[in-house]
């Protein structure tokens, strides 16, 4: 920019190094303030709330671990919500990851039309939010819904889905698999990063396509697969919009999922203290699952360069 070529140009008595440090804190300033006000502060407040019986209306009293004791030992709905959430998570993560992997492998080939196929599989994962939840209410309509119509074509009498105690939660899992496109794109990128030389070497060694898949493809994409697994698990535990729009936790408690139960306690019953305790238990569950996956990953995730 300017004609100055001096390598160091102390300004206002600051060395270049100090100047850089000041810049650093100026640049992250907005985030840091936001973190303190909207994340860090609230986290501490939330932890404090979870030890009170505050309802948003009454004055708050310190009750120690009472909320935690109550929800673990006296609250049947807590256990129902937890069980439903695990069921949903297991279903949607397994179907979502395996489905995405299956499609990604098939579409990772130079065949005419694969680009179009990728787009078709990907679009539903972009289409999200309330509009799509409403679409699925219509698709799951027991009498004239498209899902039951398609089932009737292959001779299966469709269940009443969202209106059924037994089928409402599986219906939400089915809906979630419609959005595997995002995972598919990530896995495709992973598959494309596998060096072709490995496949050629495997061919020369006379490897069966099956061996190739389990001994080349899977180890090489295992870091990406692991990433997809962790992200999907975390996301599945936070399902809320679908339940708010499609089922409101019903019928009965069939789709009462964890975050919906938090929502009910906080914003419908105004039990802020109790809801905060619930939120912390959720955080603990998610953290435990992530650590468990991290620990398990050591057995199956292969990192090419252990240095990174």
């Amino acid at each position, binding site marked *: *920019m*300017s004609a*100055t*070529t001096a390598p160091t*140009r102390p300004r206002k008595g600051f060395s270049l*190094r100090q100047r*850089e*440090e000041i810049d*650093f*804190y100026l*640049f*992250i300033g*907005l985030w840091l303030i*936001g*973190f303190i*006000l*909207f994340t*860090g502060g*609230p986290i501490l*407040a*939330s932890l404090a*709330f979870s030890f009170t019986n505050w309802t948003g209306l009454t004055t708050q009293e310190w009750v120690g671990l009472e909320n935690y004791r109550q929800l673990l030992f006296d609250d049947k709905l807590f256990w129902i919500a937890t069980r439903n959430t695990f069921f949903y998570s297991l279903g949607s993560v397994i179907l979502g990851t395996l489905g995405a992997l299956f*499609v990604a492998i*098939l579409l990772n080939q130079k*065949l005419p039309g694969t680009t179009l*196929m990728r787009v078709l*599989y990907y*679009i*539903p994962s972009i*289409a*999200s*939010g*309330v*509009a799509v939840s*409403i*679409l699925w*209410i*219509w*698709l799951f309509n027991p*009498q*004239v819904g*498209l899902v039951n*119509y398609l089932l*009737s074509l292959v001779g299966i009498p469709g269940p009443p889905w969202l209106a059924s105690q037994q089928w409402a939660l599986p219906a939400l899992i089915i809906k979630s698999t419609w959005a595997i496109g*995002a995972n598919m*794109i990530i896995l495709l*990128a*992973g598959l494309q990063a596998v060096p072709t030389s490995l496949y050629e070497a495997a061919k020369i060694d006379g490897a069966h396509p099956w061996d190739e898949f389990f001994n080349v493809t899977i180890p090489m994409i295992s870091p*990406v697969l692991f990433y997809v697994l962790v992200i999907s698990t*975390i996301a599945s535990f*936070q399902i809320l*919009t679908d339940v708010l*729009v499609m089922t409101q936790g019903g019928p009965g408690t069939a789709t009462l999922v964890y*975050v919906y139960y938090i929502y009910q306690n906080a914003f419908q019953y105004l039990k802020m203290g109790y*809801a*905060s305790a619930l*939120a912390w238990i*959720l*955080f603990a569950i*998610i953290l435990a699952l992530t650590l468990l996956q991290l620990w398990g990953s050591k057995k199956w995730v292969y990192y090419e360069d252990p240095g990174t």
Partner: protein
Amino acid sequence: MDQVTSQPISPITGRIARTTPWHQRRRTRRIAHAALVYVLVVPGAVLFTIPLLWMLSTALKDPKQIFVFPPQWIPNPVMWSNFPRGWNDFLPFNTFLINSLIITTSNIIGNLISCSLAAFAFARLRARGKNFLFMLVLGTMLLPQEVTVIPQYVLFTRLGWNDSWLPLMVPPWFGWPFFIFLLRQFFMGIPRELDEAARLDGASSWRILWNVILPLSKPALATVVIFGFIGNWNNFLYPLIYIRSMDKQVLAVALNMFRGAYGNANYQYMMAVSLLVLLPVLLVFFFGQRLFVRGIALTGIKG
């Protein structure tokens, strides 16, 4: 694996001629392979496309044609009027549209500014405490929003921000961990020589960010815009909690109100309005697709 058979000698080359079984012959195999891929992949693609087509079909139908079984795909008559009627005759969707546009645009701009700044600092500037602060960014990425939603609600209510857009519009100006991470990863990939040359010429950090880094980061910035658009446009929980007045409401919540009040008897209008709400998301994706997919791949892999 190999079948031990008598192996005929080729008259031309003198080598052992391959009488390989059909499924090992190259051309046949390629075709069989392609056919297998299509057989597995095409039905799924059709299945994945059907819901949106069905949405369009229902949106264009006469009410009489909706509760017909088996379902009919082609609307007859084609009721284009379902779109304006659904949009205008029940709830003021124009108001909601304007509200959603204002909030979404402001939030994207806020995110772009605050996250580029922080990402640049984390990618390029040396300072004490940097690693610790970056761990905080990563940590908050994993934190479920439910943990902060309740105390934030208490805070914003105390500030008198209930039933206003402030709870939706203020936080995005203070950064979003995921975008900071995404941009930082991208900035790290830009050769450092470029900004070091500029720095030797006496350029300030602001100048380097503005004139060197940002012009090279269009795919990452586009990813932030697209993710930001989809996230804000679809944001349901926050407006649901905070906004009471009809004239301040946003599309996502209004759509659910519409479903609750008129939905069961008016599937054609519900699908028409839902489709209109969904349309901008699909358009943004189509126009930004190239940049967007590259951005996802980058964060997905480098993460």
